[in-house]
């Protein structure tokens, strides 16, 4: 059966460029793990425990049976701020926040499952993921909205009162209306 080829607006294709989205996902995931590793390393030093790669990549350390497990869980929740900042800076579009935030957690689930060779069986791990996802989605959406609604700045710095001289002034352009 011949596939139906459709005409789509170029703008849709530009903003959905797979290469761009893929590189954004890779960058977000790298930032997610990099900051998490630093935070967990710090926690390990403070607790006086030996650090291993299990900490960032396995779900086993996140268990609700001892204090260390709860500490790691808190660190993971704190790490959701990394995703918030990274999404706001790298993606910056409110409508895409939900997708990117859930993608980070989905990929983390995949990597954890592969690393530990079993699906996460700790209820705390799932709770942490849920909490982290909620924090990331809500905060990043809010921040991106703020960023998108920011007043436009012309010539570098936003000027509240238009002054004369070399500054740019807002003038209604007649030529914007096409004949």
């Amino acid at each position: 059966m011949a596939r139906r080829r459709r005409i789509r607006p170029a703008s849709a294709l530009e903003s959905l460029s797979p290469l761009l989205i893929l590189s954004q996902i890779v960058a977000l995931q790298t930032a997610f793990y990099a900051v998490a590793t630093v935070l967990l390393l710090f926690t390990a030093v403070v607790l006086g425990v030996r650090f291993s790669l299990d900490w960032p990549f396995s779900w086993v350390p996140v268990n609700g049976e001892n204090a260390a497990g709860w500490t790691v869980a808190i660190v993971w929740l704190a790490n959701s701020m990394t995703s918030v900042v990274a999404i706001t800076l790298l993606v910056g579009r409110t409508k895409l926040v939900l997708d990117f935030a859930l993608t980070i957690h989905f990929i983390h689930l995949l990597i954890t499952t592969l690393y530990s060779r079993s699906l996460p069986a700790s209820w705390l791990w799932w709770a942490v993921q849920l909490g982290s996802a909620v924090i990331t989605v809500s905060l990043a959406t809010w921040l991106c909205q703020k960023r998108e609604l920011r007043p436009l700045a012309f010539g570098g710095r936003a000027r509240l009162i238009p002054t004369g001289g070399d500054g740019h002034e807002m003038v209604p352009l007649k030529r914007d209306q096409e004949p």
Partner: protein
Amino acid sequence: MYHLFKGLYYYATTKEGTLPVCPAVCAAAKYSILLLGLDNAGKTTLLEKIKSIYLAHAPAPRQGAQPPTVGQNMSTIPLPAPLPPIYLKIWDIGGQESLRNLWTQYYTSSHAIVFVVDSTDKARIEECRDVLEIVVDAEDTEGIPILMLANKQDREESLEVEEIKEVFNKIAERLSARDSRVLPISALTGTGVKESVEWLVTRVMRNKEYRPPLMR
């Protein structure tokens, strides 16, 4: 990930020709060119000729006489060469006396004016000059390049460019401060058409500080 797969699906199911050739970063500049002149000067024929030269799949220009234009014809001509790409949006507006009042509506959004003169119509050359004078004196056309085309040079009885220049000399003196030129062309055979378009491109680009193009 949803948008990643959506994007992949879009790319897989979209016609090749409609894929964006140029990313959003290099937006194309669009300049509007006005074709003005008396009725029967050859504006529509000129537009048809430009289309047949610059558009790959343009239909062949209509043979014989064009019927008078009521309203306007518009074509967007992509120019290949320089990066970033340029588009000329050419407006061909009816030149009959009753339609000339409409011209003023186009002045503010145009980047250059092409005034087409019928070189064979000696009887109306004075009227032609008066009309051009009105166009030039309009407030909204100030500072934009004006190209005068002495059309129908393929005809034997056509006036020489020098003769036409003489008629327009008075106006030309006032135009001296801005870009203007008289070129002989034949819209029917196509002689001089390419040169005219090239002249327009260099002038609108030189003038883009004063009249910035539409970006899209």
